[in-house]
């Protein structure tokens, strides 16, 4: 793995000038992913914050070939490009080793893009799919997705007098992707550059489909203080809300174990979308969330021990 100094010297492929919000996780994620790939790379992007903010014609933040077609189909779009690569390489029309990366938000991954993602994973295209997961449809106005956590207030699961924010827990996309028997899947955060860079490196050196789920803070939708963006992702890890782990050929590995598991309130209290949960009367929801975080954490530990 390259050192931070070496990374800093690499040519940037996701460059400044984009219109992402200050304190947005997506820009940091895109930059780190692109820095980790020291090869010719074709990027696909689902419709979403990252795409609309980085490609406003006639400008582009992508100093590498880039394609966007629609919202629900980045995995299918890149499937086509990767298939063309295989056949053109066979014909000797291309001599480079090309890496394919698809970026999708959680809506474009967990919800509307799940079918095309599943298809591409099943077919085993050699690509890295990065879900920059800000846990709601932030680009279109903070609507809930199946990645939105229990209790979060969004514009379509607002905290009201009767309903206290989203009723369901988030979909377990990692298990779904791992169930495709893909050779590499990992979960990471932008707040630990070495973790994300390491995982991207592993993924692009994997012969087949790989998937990385990255927690992406959204200062508008969560909302949080912009300067807290990276820190907040580390707190997600410390509370075991967002464990850092990977699954290589079916073998789970925990990449970081907090010395002391922090209570979930440490994560909740930093974000406006959970503010109502910390008011009197909603203690039972916080308890439920803690219970589910614990359950998922224990389940993950078991998988790491037994797989």
């Amino acid at each position, binding site marked *: 793995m390259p050192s931070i100094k070496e990374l800093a010297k690499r040519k940037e492929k996701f460059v400044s000038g984009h219109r992402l919000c200050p304190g947005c996780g997506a820009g940091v994620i895109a930059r780190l992913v692109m820095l980790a790939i020291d090869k010719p790379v074709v990027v696909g992007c689902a419709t979403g914050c990252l795409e609309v903010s980085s490609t406003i014609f006639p400008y582009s933040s992508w100093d590498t070939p880039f394609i966007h077609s629609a919202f629900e189909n980045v995995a299918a779009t890149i499937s086509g490009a990767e298939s063309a690569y295989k056949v053109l390489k066979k014909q000797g029309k291309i001599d480079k080793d090309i890496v394919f990366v698809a970026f999708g938000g959680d809506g474009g991954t967990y919800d509307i893009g799940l079918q*095309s993602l599943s298809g591409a994973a099943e077919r085993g295209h050699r690509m890295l799919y990065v879900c920059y997961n800000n846990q709601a449809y932030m680009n279109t106005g903070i609507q809930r997705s199946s990645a939105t956590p229990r209790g979060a207030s969004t514009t379509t699961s607002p905290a009201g007098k009767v309903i206290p924010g989203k009723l369901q827990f988030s979909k377990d996309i990692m298990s779904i992707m791992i169930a495709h028997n893909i050779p590499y899947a990992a979960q990471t955060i932008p707040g630990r550059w070495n973790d994300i860079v390491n995982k991207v490196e592993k993924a692009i050196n994997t012969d087949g489909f790989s998937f990385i789920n990255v927690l992406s803070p959204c200062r508008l939708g969560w909302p949080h203080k912009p300067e807290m963006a990276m820190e907040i992702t580390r707190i997600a890890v410390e509370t075991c809300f967002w464990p850092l782990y990977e699954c290589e050929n079916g073998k789970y590995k925990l990449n970081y174990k907090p010395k002391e598991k922090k209570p979930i309130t440490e994560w909740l209290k930093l974000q406006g979308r959970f503010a109502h949960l910390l008011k009197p009367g909603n203690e039972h929801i916080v308890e439920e969330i803690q219970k589910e975080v614990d359950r998922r954490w224990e389940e993950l530990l078991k998988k790491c021990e037994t797989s």
Partner: protein
Amino acid sequence: MPSKRVTKTGNEIFAEAMRQINPDVVAAYPITPATEIVQIFSQFVADGIVKTEYVAVESEHSAMSACIGSAATGARTMTGTSSQGLALMWEMLYIAAGLRLPIIMAVVNRALSAPINIHCDHSDTMGARDSGWIQIYSENVQEAYDNLVQAVKIAEHPEVRLPVMATTDGFILSHCLEVAEILDDETVQKFIGEPPKRPTIFDFENPITLGALDLQDYYFEHRRQVAETMKKSIRVIDEVADEYAKLTGRKYSFFESYYLDDAEYAIVLIGSTAGTAKDVVDKLRNEGKKVGLMKIRVFRPFDYLRVRKALENIKIIGVMDRADGLNSFCGPLFSEICTCLYESEKKPALMNFIYGLGGREVREEDIETVFEELFKIEKQGKTVNTKYIGVRE
């Protein structure tokens, strides 16, 4: 030129043309109703007789998405679909055209749900008529072959770079055996040539951002370019037809005129019904009636000027639509014919007939009924509203 006669169904001939075109990538999905085209073609892939990378995607939406990703690299890219499959591709059809990607698609025309139906009508492609795809329709299996081969050259022409769909009528052509003449593989390859160079996402020296966000300041200009390109493609479609005629002796135009020159009554229609209509025209001509037929081959772009010129001297025209506009007035072909004749000083009388929906059989008697309606108009001195042919009401 070396050619041979074969007996094939419409689906088989499309697959055979695809084998000869030997595209880099085919991405397809067998939605209900599935077409055999890509099944036959996958056998060619499995047997190693084409170089194609076959992407067996999980939906038609992904089929067109994968075609977009593939075509963006400069690879020659094809697919095939029908009915609901085309409907599911809708969103991506517009994107393929807007990104100026020369994807070639074989379409079997079949009805759209509901009710669910797998038989012929033109509702599927008529709905896609404003998507920016060039549309070429076929009367028979021979034309299906000729149209698909020409489609490659039209789509990839540097002045066009638009996707093209070539179509056949479901079952009537797709599943019926006909004799057709096909070129040999080498001649097809020579005719279509290597795909001309265009900007691609495999250019790392000059990386492009394809599919950028266009706001109020640029979107309109880019759409305007597509409109202008569609206009320019008329000349290219003619050029490709001329070149193809030199190879095969089969000369294609935007439409075929059958006894139109001195006709007083004519039918305008699209697709396989032209065969039946020609027989009726022959019969009525033998009876001394001055009748004729215009078969539209290229519906997008629509060659208004030439269609007008060919029709304006006719007294009464019946336009037969195998798709309903459900607009309380007429079908889509009728709208086009009306529009192109509006500026003619002669203004023939026009009447619209909707026919053959969901595979309802069209017999010679039905075409005769249409002509009788046209004769009636002359006697009554006025046109009547859209008439439905062959339906119980």
